[in-house]
């Protein structure tokens, strides 16, 4: 059975801290790993990773994939209260198939 496991499940940090969110996976067919931020209802897309060792970066957020060890990390530096959200990791199989989501990490950034 396919599994996507995120850790930690919840995290409370102070503004300015750096956080690392983890995602490990065991899936039969792997095409990509995706990170999403969910604040209200709809997840918003952050990164899609398909190749090992290539860091994707967007502002204070970055992510990298290790296909040998089957995990990915999402880093957020200099956190702000607006980063408070649920961060979802999902694995995408072959084209035409739905994403398989982890349980998410709930991040709270306090002033």
């Amino acid at each position: 059975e396919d599994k996507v496991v995120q850790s930690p499940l919840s995290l409370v940090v102070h503004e300015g801290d750096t956080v690392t969110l983890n995602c490990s996976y065991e899936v039969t067919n792997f095409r990509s790993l995706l990170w999403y931020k969910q604040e209200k209802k709809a997840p918003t897309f952050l990164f899609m990773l398909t190749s090992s060792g290539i860091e994707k970066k967007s502002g204070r957020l970055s992510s990298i994939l290790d296909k040998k060890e089957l995990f990915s990390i999402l880093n957020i530096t200099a956190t702000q209260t607006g980063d408070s959200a649920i961060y979802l990791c999902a694995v995408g199989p072959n084209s035409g198939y739905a994403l398989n989501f982890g349980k998410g990490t709930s991040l709270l950034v306090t002033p």
Partner: protein
Amino acid sequence: SAVISQKPSRDICQRGTSLTIQCQVDSQVTMMFWYRQQPGQSLTLIATANQGSEATYESGFVIDKFPISRPNLTFSTLTVSNMSPEDSSIYLCSVDRGGYGYTFGSGTRLTVV
């Protein structure tokens, strides 16, 4: 990337009634996916809707409870039938945009009373 218009945004419904959720995509897509997110939980796939054929349902979800229509390549509906409080969730539609990841509709927050 694709824009998906989903409605209604939210609704409060009486138990025993049905609600139909609509998703309109701004370009043609082969597959559309319907998810449910129960309070405090992650996203669970309900079914995959392929235009021109019956939807494929995941274990635990049945067509009588969650009928899906896919009349063309840009539109789909999900109906939540004979609702109970356990159906209170966020419902989301999604499409695969290839190299741009999967895009989600804005979501429908359903409360059943």
